[in-house]
């Protein structure tokens, strides 16, 4: 019925689509554009920089040549003293070269990657076991669990931040960096598990039971049938769910800010960026470049999983 379009209708349609796409994409273009602009160019409303300026990226990725160290004359005299050991000289120099100017972006990115990756793997694995049981097996309290997941899925993090923080203080996890990161990992697991269970449960139901039955006729146990039939057939969906969990953990700010505040070495990107923004080193091009680099992995994930994502999200209910 939509085949016959008058030229006016076509133009309107494309104009509306274009308007919607620009609305969605404009903030991203703004980030990209500002990250590439030289500070003198910020007042220029055009999105196209006059000159492409990559310093912010180089700085974040550690590609900038080391700056000449400014050492006051009095210290220089100390350094010239041959009686001073080389080690002491290094220590003195370090005080002047490691200003507050250094933002260990690579380290923060690695922190975020590791915790998101582990969360994604564990969540997908545990969710696939539970989702299979809820979708296929009969056991006591099954429907209670299926509905319970729905409830859990809707309780937001804000409602749990005080008790979770107090729990980790009470069991002593909050007093060490390792314990804190472990608490954070567990919290990310519960933030992602219900969604993952939902998406996978609905997917498993679309796989015909006769396939498992046939495998079990051939002598597979139920568990083997699950591993050999269901899991391989679900690979695309498992991957999508992994990506989804990975991205949720990658983007999380609230709990990271509550738990990691005092462990600066273990900050994740959202927390580090927020700290950078409120610090004296807040410079638009650097913030935008950092934003861009934080975005990039998400966009890559999104492109990899896009095909199954839309379907999975609408089947599985939606979080967020």
């Amino acid at each position: 019925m939509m085949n016959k379009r008058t030229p006016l209708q076509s133009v309107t349609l494309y104009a509306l689509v274009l308007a919607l796409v620009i609305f969605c994409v404009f903030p991203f273009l703004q980030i990209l554009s500002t990250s590439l602009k030289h500070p003198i160019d910020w007042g220029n409303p055009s999105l196209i920089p006059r000159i492409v300026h990559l310093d912010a990226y180089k700085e974040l990725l550690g590609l900038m040549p080391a700056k000449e160290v400014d050492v006051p004359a009095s210290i220089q005299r100390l350094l010239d003293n041959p009686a001073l050991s080389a080690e002491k000289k290094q220590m003195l120099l370090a005080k002047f070269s490691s200003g507050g100017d250094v933002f260990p972006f690579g380290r923060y990115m690695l922190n975020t990657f590791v915790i998101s990756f582990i969360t994604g793997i564990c969540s997908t694995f545990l969710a696939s076991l539970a989702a299979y049981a809820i979708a296929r097996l009969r056991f006591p309290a099954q429907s209670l669990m299926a509905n319970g997941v729905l409830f859990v899925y809707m309780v937001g993090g804000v409602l749990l931040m005080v008790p979770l923080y107090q729990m980790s203080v009470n069991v002593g996890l909050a007093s060490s960096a390792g314990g804190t990161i472990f608490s954070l990992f567990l919290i990310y697991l519960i933030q992602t598990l219900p969604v993952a269970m939902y998406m996978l449960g609905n997917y498993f139901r679309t796989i015909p039971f006769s396939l498992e039955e046939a495998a079990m006729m051939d002598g597979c146990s139920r568990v083997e049938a699950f591993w050999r039939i269901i899991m391989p057939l679900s690979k695309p969906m498992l991957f999508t769910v992994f990506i989804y969990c990975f991205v949720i953990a990658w983007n999380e700010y609230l709990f990271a800010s509550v738990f990691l505040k005092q462990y600066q070495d273990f900050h994740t990107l959202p927390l580090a960026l927020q700290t950078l923004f409120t610090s004296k080193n807040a410079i638009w091009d650097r913030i935008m470049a950092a934003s861009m680099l934080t975005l990039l992995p998400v966009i890559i994930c999104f492109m990899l999983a896009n095909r199954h994502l839309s379907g999975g999200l609408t089947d599985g209910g939606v979080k967020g």
Partner: protein
Amino acid sequence: MSSVLIKNESRLGLKLVAPAVGIIGLLVIYPILFNLYLSFFDVQLNGSKTFVGLNNYTELLGNPRYYHSIGVSVIYLIGTVIGTTVLGLAAAILMNQTFRFRNLARGLILLPYFAPVISVVFGWQFIFDPVNGIYNHVVVDVLHLTNERENLIGNPDSALFVVILFDIWKHFPIAYLLFLAKLQSVPKDLYEAAAIDGQNPWGRFWHVTLPELRFVIATVVLLRVIWNLNRFEDVYLLAPNVETLPIFTYYQAFAGIVDQGAAAAISVIQLLVLVGLIWLYVRKVLKW
């Protein structure tokens, strides 16, 4: 099935759900109860507590900031729920047409939903930056609507509306996906019949699309209310001066004069409201 098989199956089922359910029980169900317990105490960051009975609640109910944050939350909820639903529906109808580059367009409009809040808030901050931002450039220098450059995000009253716009931008893709999925299942002959009856596109929307989408619209509205009631990051990171209920709770729990007992009390009250909404969702939406 023999009883042995049934028994084995249920044992396996329990074994498979045990880890997930155990973690959820430990980190969601228990904390909810623990939170209720904490709300009767004066709780410090280091974990020390003294019993104060209903004190947290009575103090909270006498605190004008609490009511103010409820008011801000209500405006925020109304704005974002209506905005995401309407824009999501419009986008779904648009993207349900066939046109060139449709797949590209469909992909691009999902981007705001997946992007990390922390990245996109800076883009939005820059757009509304009083010195360099495009918003002030357009309003002041191009359209001459006002004479002075304004810091919209700096002022809590106007920042609320920037936050609402931001959240519509960020979350309409989800409403759009749910609507699109439903639209694709509306039988084509309904539209053809309506066209034969002489309905113009607007009439077809009114008499076919809307009635078919009724339940999805209700689902989207209810889900958005539930999610946005708890929304913290978007608001806090874009404009920390907009004090919705979650932001108020956060300040009570972790900033300034820390009062985690009061924060627990707020969460208990909010959870009661939330349970009501979830009950409504399970009762009404899932039964449809």
